[in-house]
């Protein structure tokens, strides 16, 4: 892939100057300036058009407004999931079902719906709670931790690796790969290759000796009476690797950072844990984690904007959920917010298959953390670190509490 400087492309002729706005979703200076990725998107909402073209990362659209994102994600005939990466990949990898459109999509989505159904995920609650308690108890007496390395990284990632049948002793290595697959540097393709090779080895091992894990179940899965091809099987596993090893990590970190800055919310939830479910939903709404992308599949005028085939489109979920037209007083984290019907897990057929697992993990984390750790706050002597890509990530989150 091209260097980052070469990723800046001339604005195509179908894009009017009034819709051009310079923004790099991987590393915009606005992130550092605001000190917070979500605040940067809030700033964009106030300064940029609700849908604009940026010349960065190969050149692409960015949709900020909630209504437009909802409509786009429910219109796959215009906003296709085939070849959707930003910047474009030199060789696109088919990852079922996320990189497919209806009607094929439904067939390939079916095995994941079964595997990640609310019922199946509830069966994991005991294991999740046990691991959460174990990880938290390990650091409770220290009075401080980097929440990412101590809790939010191992908890959901180990649960997911076990579910998949991945070797848990390679967690640190796999986390590096995930971040590379989400980057806009040449490391991206290399990392996809490493993930593919690793998953291919696991698939071979499971073909010889099936286990009670998701890889073994995918091998057995049939579509139209036939087992999956080797390439599709690998595609599934690559998707699950990337989707399973990063998003909930950041959902947990973003939540704990907000609570560390808002001790009254901690007190409220400790006093009444029955509010945790609502607290999780409003936290997801206030701090969306993932930004999906699409590729325009036809030349079309859409909401007054000329789109051309192969234009890439980024769905800026953080902006959509801070859009005052959709959520009044959007910066406010409001536990009592009526009607938090957010689309942080996407909307339409591609709704995040892992959403039920994510919700259960977040609810358990809130509960166990607040039970075991007294009032906590950001470490006044250290500063958190974050980065952004299609997933908004906190890399380091130093917090302290009295022991």
């Amino acid at each position, binding site marked *: 892939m091209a260097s980052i400087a070469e990723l800046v492309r001339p604005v195509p002729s179908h894009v009017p100057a009034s819709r051009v706005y310079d923004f790099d979703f991987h590393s915009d200076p606005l992130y550092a300036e605001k000190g917070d990725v979500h605040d940067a998107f809030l700033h964009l909402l106030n300064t940029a058009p609700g849908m604009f073209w940026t010349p960065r990362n190969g050149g692409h659209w960015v949709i900020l407004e909630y209504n437009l994102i909802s409509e786009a994600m429910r219109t796959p005939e215009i906003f296709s999931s085939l070849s959707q990466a930003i910047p474009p990949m030199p060789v696109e990898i088919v990852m079922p079902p996320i990189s497919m459109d209806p009607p094929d999509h439904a067939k390939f989505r079916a095995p994941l*719906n079964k595997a990640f*159904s609310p*019922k199946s995920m509830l069966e994991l609650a005991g294991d999740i709670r046990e691991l959460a308690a174990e990880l938290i108890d390990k650091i409770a007496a220290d009075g401080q931790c980097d929440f990412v390395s101590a809790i939010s990284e191992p908890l959901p990632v180990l649960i997911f690796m076990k579910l998949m049948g991945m070797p848990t002793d390679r967690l640190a290595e796999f986390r590096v790969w995930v971040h590379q697959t989400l980057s806009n540097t040449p490391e991206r393709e290399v990392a996809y290759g490493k993930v593919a090779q690793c998953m291919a080895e696991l698939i071979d091992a499971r073909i010889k000796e099936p286990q009670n894990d998701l890889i073994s179940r995918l091998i057995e899965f049939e579509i139209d009476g036939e087992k999956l091809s080797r390439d599709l099987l690998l595609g599934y596993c690559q998707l699950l690797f990337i989707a399973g090893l990063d998003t909930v990590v950041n959902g947990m970190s973003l939540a704990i950072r907000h609570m560390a800055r808002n001790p009254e919310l901690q007190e409220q939830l400790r006093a009444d844990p029955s509010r945790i479910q609502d607290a999780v939903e409003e936290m997801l709404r206030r701090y969306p984690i993932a930004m999906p992308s699409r590729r325009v599949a036809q030349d079309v005028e859409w909401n007054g904007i000329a789109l051309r085939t192969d234009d890439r489109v980024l769905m800026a979920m953080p902006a959509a959920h801070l859009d005052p037209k959709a959520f009044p007083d959007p910066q406010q984290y409001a536990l009592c917010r009526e009607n938090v*019907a957010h689309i942080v897990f996407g*909307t339409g057929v591609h*709704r995040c298959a892992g*959403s039920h697992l994510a919700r259960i993990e977040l609810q358990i984390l809130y509960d166990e953390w607040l039970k075991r750790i007294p009032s906590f706050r950001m470490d006044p002597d250290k500063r958190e670190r974050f980065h952004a890509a299609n997933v908004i990530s906190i890399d380091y989150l130093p917090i302290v509490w009295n022991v």
Partner: protein
Amino acid sequence: MSKMKIVIDRNRCAGHARCAAIDPELFILDDDGYIASEDFDVPEGKEASARRGARACPERVISVIEED
């Protein structure tokens, strides 16, 4: 006496399962977590819960019909 009915556009359910999180007795899910309930009359006393369940749907496929 007013009667309340729930109408569901099942084809557009995306399986968020938020309705069932509000009231699992009113909104029944299939094994995959998608809505299994057909349109139904809301039992007396369940009106508030039915309204909240409908509002919780991110796809906006659950409608509340109130008849006088």
